[in-house]
Structures are given as structure tokens and as C-alpha cells.
């Protein structure tokens, strides 16, 4: 997949996310759109994970700690071939495995998440396990910036540095909004880079919608002997103008007119991308 095709993937994913949420009548729209580019790079460039390798003990591990943005993860896993895209028609339906947070009943999901502040401790354990086995697979987790108010993250951050887990990367989807409003107003996590640095992590801040920057940041540990924190500055609702950086789209579901307008914007963006290629 070349860079042009990778860029198109992000738009395709955004369209599929909106379709799934619209069909289900529920979902975390804004956060799914803010982390779409991160998941695109992870699954298409970084992780050695596929339906064929998912049973392998040497696969990389990805745990989505911000589990509410599961629609983005489901769409990417469907695209990777873990299950037919049509399965997402059951999203949030009676007895469906495609519930509003990741569960291992869905192929490709590593761990059940949804309660915040759980992914980093689990991934710290996974990374310690890999070190004990002298294995070279890598552990990735995605957290929200609002999620960082959960104290368990900082317990794990301390332990990951203590154990020099350079096989662990935490990506912070810093979209600066949470359900109540601006993260800086609800419970500021800034200066975030300084905090992770003080905890003993290697830190890089990137534009979370710059695919090349993300790919470079995720390609290898930032420093030997330290866990890596990638602070991805993102826009909640990215890709749909009227959703971008607007709090109500945290779990807003578009009405028919909004849905049509959003798809039209995405289709136009894809057409522009094709024309520029």
C-alpha cells in the first residue's frame, strides 16, 4: 500500500465509521474520527498483526484503552479481514458481539476494555512478559487525554519506566475534548509531555493526522531503555467540518441531513485526493 492509498484509507475508514454509527443509532463519533489516522497507520504500517498472525505468540499487541472509540477499531479490523464488514450492521444490536466497547468475542480484539485507565497497566504486564521471554514483539496502547485523569495510568507509567519497557508505546489521542467539555477545563493533563518525561518516558509530540509523522514515531522505540509516549495532537470529529472540535459530537449521532452532508464532505475529500495523485 503506497502513501496515496494509505491516505485514502483514512477517508474510507471515516466514511465506514459514520455509516456504522448511523446504522446503529449510537456510537462515539468524535473520538473515533480523532483516532482514525492513528489506527490506520498502526494496522497498515506498524503492527505485524493480521487474521493469519493473530494466534501467533510473537504478534505485536494493540490494546485500545479508550475503548469507547471502538467503532474506529471495528472498521479497521473489518478492513484487515478479521470479519466481514457486514457484521458491523449488528453494532449495538441484541446479542451482537459488536458492542459499544472492545470485547475479545470480536476477532482481532486483544483485551476487553471500556472502563478507562485499564489499558496501560495491562500493556505494562504484556511488555514485562515479552521482556521475560526475551521476545521482540512490541506492545501498543491508545489512550485519550481525558482518560489520563484516571490514576491507574500513572501507576502503570511509573512501573513501565521502572522496568525500562522500551517495547511499550502509549499513544495519547489528545483531542482536547471530553464529554463535559474542554479537557483543560474539566481536569487539565498539561503539560503532558513534561509529565511523561518526569515519569521516565521518552516523549514525542506529533500531529495526529500526519500519517508520515505517525508512522515515523511508531516505527521503533523512541529511546533504548524507556517506554515511548506519542502525544498525538488531534481534532475531535476530524474530517467532517461541522463535527470538528465540537463537544456534542463526543457521542452525537448524525441525523439524516447531517449524515448526508458528512458523507458528501468525505467523498469530496477522497475525490480531491484522487485528482491530486
Amino acid at each position: 500500500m503506497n502513501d496515496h492509498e494509505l491516505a485514502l484509507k483514512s477517508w474510507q475508514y471515516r466514511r465506514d465509521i459514520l455509516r456504522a454509527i448511523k446504522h446503529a443509532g449510537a456510537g462515539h463519533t468524535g473520538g473515533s474520527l480523532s483516532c482514525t489516522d492513528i489506527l490506520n497507520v498502526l494496522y497498515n504500517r506498524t503492527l505485524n498483526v493480521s487474521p493469519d498472525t493473530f494466534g501467533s505468540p510473537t504478534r505485536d499487541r494493540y490494546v485500545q484503552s479508550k475503548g469507547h472509540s471502538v467503532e474506529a477499531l471495528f472498521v479497521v479490523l473489518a478492513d484487515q479481514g478479521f470479519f466481514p464488514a457486514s457484521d458491523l450492521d449488528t453494532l449495538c444490536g441484541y446479542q451482537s458481539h459488536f458492542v459499544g466497547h472492545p470485547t475479545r468475542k470480536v476477532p482481532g480484539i486483544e483485551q476487553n476494555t471500556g472502563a478507562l485507565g485499564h489499558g496501560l497497566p495491562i500493556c505494562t504486564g504484556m511488555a514485562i512478559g515479552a521482556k521475560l521471554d526475551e521476545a521482540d514483539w512490541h506492545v501498543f496502547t491508545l489512550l485519550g487525554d481525558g482518560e489520563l485523569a484516571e490514576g491507574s495510568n500513572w501507576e502503570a507509567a511509573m512501573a513501565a519506566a521502572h522496568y525500562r519497557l522500551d517495547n511499550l508505546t502509549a499513544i495519547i489521542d489528545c483531542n482536547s475534548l471530553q464529554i463535559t467539555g474542554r479537557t483543560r477545563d474539566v481536569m487539565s493533563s498539561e503539560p503532558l509531555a513534561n509529565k511523561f518525561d518526569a515519569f521516565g518516558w521518552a516523549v514525542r509530540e506529533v500531529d495526529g493526522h500526519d500519517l508520515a509523522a505517525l508512522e515515523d514515531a511508531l516505527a521503533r522505540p523512541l529511546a533504548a531503555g524507556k517506554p515511548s509516549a506519542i502525544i498525538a495532537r488531534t481534532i475531535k470529529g476530524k474530517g467532517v467540518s461541522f463535527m470538528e472540535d465540537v463537544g456534542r459530537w463526543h457521542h452525537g449521532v448524525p441525523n439524516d441531513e447531517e449524515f448526508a452532508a458528512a458523507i458528501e464532505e468525505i467523498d469530496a475529500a477522497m475525490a480531491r485526493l484522487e485528482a491530486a495523485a
Partner: protein
Amino acid sequence: MYSEAATALATDLGLSKGRANLEVFAAAVQDLAEADRDVLAVTSDSRGSGKLGPFGQALPRQIVEVGIAEQNLVGVAAGLASTGKIVFAVSPACFLATRALEQVKNDVAYSDNPVTLVGISAGVSYGALGSTHHSLHDFAALRAINNVEVCAPADNFEAEQAVRYAAAADRPVYLRFGKAPLYDLPSDAPVQPARARVLREGGDGAFLASGETVIHALLAAEHLAREHGVQCRVASLPSIKPLDTDEVATAAVTGAVVTVEEHMVTGGLGEACAASLLQAGLAPRLRIAGIPDEYTVTGSQADIFRHYGLSMEGLADTMRSILGH
């Protein structure tokens, strides 16, 4: 721990004092770890309390220290178990079972990571340290979590068997261990998953007990037989969940049941037995002996057991009261 009369009775019965279950746990898990390098102990500044000092000395690679951080302890343990490790997450029961309850629920039970959760210094083992350090809520909290077995061994034999069972189990198990040296119970019956061990037969009443209260129930039954001619059945129920409902029903045939636990009277063994009895259409006279819903008195474990009627004399009195003696 025991009154002079209880000690004399135990001696007369030929019972010998073993070690604390915590020490048995530590030796058993070290034995397992020496045979399999994938066996790990994860601790929260608790290797001393968990008697795991020798384990840490002998097998430093196989002990993972997370510091005083119980939520992280359980999350890390779940992550390790997901990579195929056989993980014992060891922390004082008071912190493990409630401070880290959401991690137990989600990261271990819901995610099906077969961690063995080891609650050390359980019940009122830390009796004099006050209620912050009592774990009188762990049965109630963990009984309500799907996919966790809850186990409170009564003596060294049950403890050893429980550790080996949990290590081999493909699902999460919570084990509860205290600090006091325990009498070895007079039974050769094997410890079987989800089954009670019958220690004494008797048709006038029955004690259904768990953990470190079992010996007191047994002494109470012997005392009742010698002093009052009352014959009571005594069963140890190391498995609080799943419950041996067959034994509960058998006990009910006597017509008088006293359940005994080192736990609040709400949400533990007694209420589990009561629910089982009523749903089976059985209604023996019943008393739930445990810690009542009040600020728990402090003192040694023995003081607290005596205060709440969980020692030989108190349990014998409770049984006599429902028998009308």
C-alpha cells in the same frame, strides 16, 4: 487464639498445629515456580507479608514488583497472564479485593485472563490495625463477579491443594490466606473443586464453615457432643463460589444449620447458603455466624473471633440456641 478449654480439646482429639496458610502458599508457589519458569508472583510491596522473601531470593526473575499500586498489580497480572504466564497476584486481601475490584472484574474476569488472585492476611488477620486492614467484604465483592472462583482454605492441606488447583485452572481464582498457624484438620478427604469436606458426622445440627473458622466449628461440635450429647455434622467449604449446594442440602436434613465465616454476615458464605436452601425448598433453623453490620471491634484475630462468637464457645452457644438447648 484458642481458649484453654479449646486447646485442651484439640490436644485430646490429637490435632496438631501446622503452619500459617500464608507460609504454605509461599512454599507451594515457590515449588511450582522452580519447576516452571513461567510461574510468576506479582507483588505490591507485599513480598514480606506474603512470605515470599525466600521466593524473591531464589527466583528473582519470577517475582514482579509493582510497588504500592494494587490497581496496577491486577492490570499487570492480567497482561502477563495474557502472554501465557501462570500468574499469582499477591496483595493484602483488604486492598486486592476492593481497591482493585474493577481491574479484577474487567481485566481478569471479563477478559478471561486466568490470574490467581491471592488475598493475604485476610479477614481480621490484621485485627489490631483497624478496619482499613480488615478484609470482611471480599467474599461479597467477588461472589458478585462472574468468572472468578472464591476459595478460603481451612488448613495447610486445603491451602496446598488450592494453590496447585489454581495454578492449573484455566480461569481466575481468588485464594484467601491468613497469618495464624492452623491446626491440621482430621480428614484424609481430598480437596475437590467446588466440594465441601465433611469433617464430622452428626444428625442433630450442622456447621457449614469456611477458612480459618472451620477448626472452631469442629471444636464446637466436639464440645457439644461431650458436654451436651448433641451430635453435629461439620463441613469445611473451601469453595465459597461455586458453592457445594449438595452439602448445604445435606446439612439442612439435620434441621439446624449454623454457617461460620470470617466475613461480614452480609454477602458471604451464610447468605449464599441461605439462598441455596430457600431455592431448594429447604428451611432449617439457620444462623449466620460472622461479623455483624457495625464498626468492627479491634484486637487480635482471637479477640475478634471471641467477641463475635466465632470461637468454640460462641459457636456452641449459637448451635444450642437454635436447638433450644
